[in-house]
């Protein structure tokens, strides 16, 4: 038997053998029977289904992070080597109110033991082909001997984690439906982010609460920041500190350290493969490892899935078994990851499966494109950025994909890999509505961004109904290479300006960009830019805005680029 894929579900190792497209949300609620993870919208827009996703960097010893992700947008197949923590994995659900009220400490061991029993029992049924039938309530405890308590020494735990305490103390849970997701996101914040209010808000921006108006949630966050402002830097040390503080379960410390949980753990279960008839070792390309992915063939490539699951909220039901067999999950593949500085070619060479968060947080990217850090908050929410990939955002072929606009302005080159490898300029990649210069047998493998040492100015603008976690009505990026030899007035050497949401595809405003060549920055230039740009796009009306609005706001965003990049310049007549 080949080495199976595995992941850790709370404190149980789960082995699986297929590129399963089952949304983790369904697996958690139906197969594991853990109902604390809620379905609020099934498209990543509410955060009620948030779970912790723990990942280790295999190349960097001691590098571990826990992120909050929307489990409705998370394919089970993407969990290889990860630690999935649900709300039940953080604290022991209080069986009765009396217990909850007095918070009797109880032995963690007994919980883990019984829980493991139940999960394993569920796994037996799942493996027998009745996936989804096993719930905690129906599972028969004791049907397997593997449910013995884990090897770590028994310890006692108070029932609530400090995150839960903070929410309680500040009365930040009203109807309670969003609360588990909020607990998860705040826990991820403590695990992987600098401990400031701003980072805390960013961490929970994808968690929608309809009851509280967020006041009490902010106060809970403030309490946590005060309590945990002295944590070590993110990594194993911080995980240890958080386990000691009962923020994270002990399984997190073991995950962070143990390279081979599969071998060391006696708590195991198998996850059946809903896509194939046989539960184990299913046929097809399920066991593809990194070296097996060539040739690509006519596959269904998914990189992240944050768009895919919005379009296919129930892929196991809506896709045929043939289609499911073609699924190849690209995220996490080492050859598609990483941000490398190719100094010889003056390029940033970025793997297309790099996630959006890593891209925006990269010091290399921030250095190459000053101002890009400000664009991060406009891209979806942290829950989505933790999963969305660069390639996925581009290949979804939306005219309003934020990264498409940015890459076009940056003059990115896209490396396409099939039987051979070829390179396409980002602005030539989009050929028509939802039509890409990409064969079904090809994937977008890498993205090459110019990396000039100095003189680059970058700005991204986006208008949406809500500023955060929303799809753009329009967006635009401007990338300027300044002429550094000039005197008093800033002069542009080269410039590129893009626009999304004003045509069937994201476009390079080529005539407008041409105006920028060698131009001195002035109000007159801005006026010409606005005028010329208006002639380069045509707009339509939809729920995000009327055609007139799109045209008018885009004109203003053209000016806003210059307001942002050259703040001392006035746009009003009669002023300097």
């Amino acid at each position, binding site marked *: 038997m080949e080495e199976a894929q595995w992941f850790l579900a709370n404190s149980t190792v789960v082995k699986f053998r297929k590129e399963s497209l089952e949304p983790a949300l369904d697996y958690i609620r139906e197969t594991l029977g853990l109902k604390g993870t809620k379905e609020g919208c099934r498209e990543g827009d509410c955060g009620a289904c948030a779970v912790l996703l723990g990942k280790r960097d295999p190349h960097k010893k001691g590098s571990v992070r826990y992120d909050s992700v929307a489990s409705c947008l998370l394919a089970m197949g993407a969990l290889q080597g990860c630690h999935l923590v649900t709300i039940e994995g953080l604290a022991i659900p209080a069986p009765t109110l009396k217990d909850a009220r007095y918070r009797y400490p109880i032995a963690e061991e007994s919980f883990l033991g019984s829980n493991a029993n139940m999960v394993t029992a569920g796994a037996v049924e799942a493996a027998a082909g009745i996936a989804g039938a096993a719930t905690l309530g129906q599972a028969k405890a004791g049907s397997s001997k593997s449910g013995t308590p884990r090897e770590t020494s028994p310890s006692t735990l108070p029932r609530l984690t400090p995150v*839960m305490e903070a929410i309680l103390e500040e009365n930040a*849970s009203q*109807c309670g439906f969003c609360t588990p997701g909020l607990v998860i996101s705040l826990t991820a914040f403590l695990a992987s982010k600098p401990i400031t209010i701003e980072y805390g808000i960013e961490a929970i921006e994808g968690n*929608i609460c309809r009851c509280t108006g967020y006041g009490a949630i902010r106060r809970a966050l403030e309490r946590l920041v005060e309590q945990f402002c002295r944590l070590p830097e993110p990594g194993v040390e911080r995980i240890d500190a958080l386990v000691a503080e009962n923020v994270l379960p002990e399984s997190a410390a073991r995950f962070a350290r143990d390279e081979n949980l599969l071998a060391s753990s006696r708590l195991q279960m198998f996850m059946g493969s809903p896509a194939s008839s046989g539960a184990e070792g299913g046929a097809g390309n399920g066991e593809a490892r990194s070296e097996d992915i060539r040739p690509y063939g006519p596959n269904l490539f998914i990189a992240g899935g944050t768009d895919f699951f919005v379009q296919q909220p129930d892929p196991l039901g*809506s896709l045929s078994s043939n289609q499911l067999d073609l699924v190849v999950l690209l995220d996490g593949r080492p050859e598609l990851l990483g941000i490398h500085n190719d100094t010889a070619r003056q390029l940033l060479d970025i793997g297309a499966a790099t996630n959006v968060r890593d891209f925006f947080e990269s010091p290399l990217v921030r250095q190459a494109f000053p101002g890009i850090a400000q664009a991060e908050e406009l891209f979806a929410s942290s829950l989505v950025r933790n999963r969305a990939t660069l390639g996925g955002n581009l290949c979804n072929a939306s005219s309003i994909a934020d990264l498409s606009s940015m890459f076009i302005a940056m003059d990115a080159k896209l490396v396409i890999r099939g039987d051979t490898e070829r390179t396409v300029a980002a602005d030539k990649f989009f050929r028509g509505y939802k039509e890409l210069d990409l064969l079904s047998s090809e994937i977008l493998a890498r993205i090459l961004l110019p990396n000039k040492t100095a003189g680059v100015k970058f700005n991204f603008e986006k208008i949406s109904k809500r500023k955060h976690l929303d799809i753009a009505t329009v967006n635009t990026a401007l990338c300027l290479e300044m002429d550094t030899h000039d005197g008093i007035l800033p002069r542009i050497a080269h410039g590129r300006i893009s626009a999304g949401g004003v045509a069937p595809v994201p476009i390079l405003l080529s005539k407008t960009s041409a105006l920028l060549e060698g131009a001195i920055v002035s*109000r007159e230039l801005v006026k010409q830019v606005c005028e010329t740009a208006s002639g380069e796009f045509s707009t339509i009306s939809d729920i995000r805005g009327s055609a007139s609005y799109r045209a008018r706001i885009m004109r203003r965003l053209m000016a806003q680029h210059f307001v942002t990049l050259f703040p001392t310049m006035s746009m009003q*007549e009669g002023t300097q």
Partner: protein
Amino acid sequence: MNSPESFLNVTGATAYLDDLPVSADCLFAVPIVSPCAHGRLKKIDIQDALLVDPELVFVTAKDIPGVNQIGETVADEPLLVEEEWTYQGQCLAILLSADRARARRAAQAVHIEHEVLPVITDPREAARKGYFIMPSRTMACGDIHKALSQCAFVVEGCVDSGAQEHIYLETQGAIAHLGGDGKMHITSSSQSPSQVQHVAARVLDLWMNEVEVEVLRLGGGFGGKEDQAALWASLAALGAYRTRKQVKLYLDRRSDIRYTGKRHPYSTDFRIGMDAQGKLLVFEAEYFQNSGACCDLSPAILSRSLFHATAAYHIPNVTVTGHMCRTNLPPFTAFRGFGAPQAYFVIESAMDALARSSGRDPIELRRNNLRQDGDVFHFGQKAESCRALSCFDRLNEMAHLSTVRKSIAESNARNPHIKHGLAVTPICFGVSFTKLQMNQGGSLVHVYHDGTVSVATGAVEMGQQVARKIQKIAATTLGIDESRIRVDSTRSSTVANTSPTAASTGSDINGMAAMLACEQIKQRLLQWAADNWKYEKSDLGINQDCLVHAGAATRIGWEELVAKAYVARIDLSAHGFYATPGLVYDAKKEWGAPFAYHVYGCAAVLVALDVVRGTYHFEKVWVVHDSGKSIDEKVDIGQIEGGIAQGLGWAALEDLCYDAQGKILTDNLATYKIPDIHFMPEIEIEFLSGVDNPRAVLHSKAIGEPPLLYGIAGYFAILDAVRAMDADPLAAVTGSGPLDIPERSTASGLYSIPMTSEKVLDLIETMSCRAAPLLAGKASRS
């Protein structure tokens, strides 16, 4: 201490409807709905659906054993359409399958043959054609014509407000089964279990005592589950009745948004006038309520609009008329505020227009016309313990509004690209159901012989923490620790004939009923203690878990007292009942005193407008709120903050779109945006101090709905910021002018909720040409 349920919430242990265990043979129901807004059914073809699941069960109107009618106010809403449907998303049938995902796929394979009929979505068009839910209503006082001749300023205008989707995070649903006891058992996510019971009994031709309805904690309601939960519960019950199996119906988010009602859109014409001293004399309004396709709660909502037509202002001559216009949209329904927000937006728009056209300071104009003690509302009620002015003036002090306004003026003069705006909204909200019979509540309290207490009432816990308040009320009344008290779920066989948990009355009515029951038990215990230990009963009390004699604690603790009373065969259970006293209203004359009391308060909202991008950000909200003697300030703060979020969302952000054919265009959270944490400003809240309210339980005041009205200030803060511009600072470079702006945006659209970024931009670009007279007329500021 927090309510014990919260411990379950934070650990993820709270079970909502979708989390409840179901039996192994449970069937999942998926509604088959109308494919367009108005049509006639010819045939439902399920052949392809049977290919998805050959075992599926298909239930139509023919399977209804009782009356195919769920309308409670007007019998105009079938459970399942038999022939003609009147909105898109109306239920035609249900499919039942053993697997939820399969049931949903099968439903997609159902074909509906039908004839398309003409559609009306605009309430004014419906009114022109005479399509009304019920006869229109008018409330009036004074002499409009005489008063108009005395006015120095009169302004007329048109005001629109849009629909608002509840987005309770837990969608609608129910689980039903016909028990071995011959009873239909329904677990419903409902604010109104008695209505579910009544409707399900009618549909199934059962008696009410044959239908048991239990409501656990809701994952949010906000009015959306007041009238509309009965539909889903009745469908589940019908499925269970036909199949004799457990049936679960739980809508996914898209279905919920598509099929269920929202806050009513209103379109209103107004006329307002004042004398030369700035005192309001006249207000007239004609409200066109878009009621949707069925009656639902539209009449009650309209009456609350009419009652709140003048908001917190005293106006001696008023005529307000409301029309309930029948359109082909899903029946609009209760949503926190219940018609009051729509009316508030009209009068606040009228005040804004009046201030701008007369050159008066809008904040001063509002203050000068606040209602005071002894003023008579336009429906005859006399204002008592009126605190409009004290809230207004305290807000002015607390928020340092004059300093704030000065620094706004300074920063606006300095910064061409960011303009700040400020608006103040006073509130005055009547508490009581406007339908008199609904102002009643019951409770059932048991003291168990170990000293713990179970309190059941008609109140549904949906996050508003009414259980927390009832727990405190019971503990205070009994003189024992809160941890001994458990507030139990709402169940029709425990407390009968309950009113919905709505109209902000949840804690007033049910809290009072709980108090009365606790009081009975306490008196029995004290009587027995007096007899047993030879005390004067009048000297006895219970305090801090202890029997108290003449003010001093005895050695007899609560547990001992209860245990001994039990042995002595004292009744430790009691039913409490409360009917709000003093309510009178003559619906024919539209005159009386329909409210037990009013809630007062005042809010200021500060906004920063980015005039280049045409976007805005609310920076700060200040609130002074009259909560009487608050039962729990943390709970009340949560209600105020949450209400403001929904109010700001409605006024500015939440943009629910239907097309002309009555199809909803924003049916998910990707397109319908509600406030997130970035959207919400800092909110500073102060409770008005030293105030009492003898008219409600423990001298508190209702809290649920009134704070939503504060959000309306956000709309006028944006207008204030737009008016702070001299001209569009980008006019020189963008070359934009009035010709580019669609017609609707210039004058009539000035008062049109929500204030989307698109509307903001229209206003900004209008500034460059001073096309809109109301915008251009900038008020002078002191």
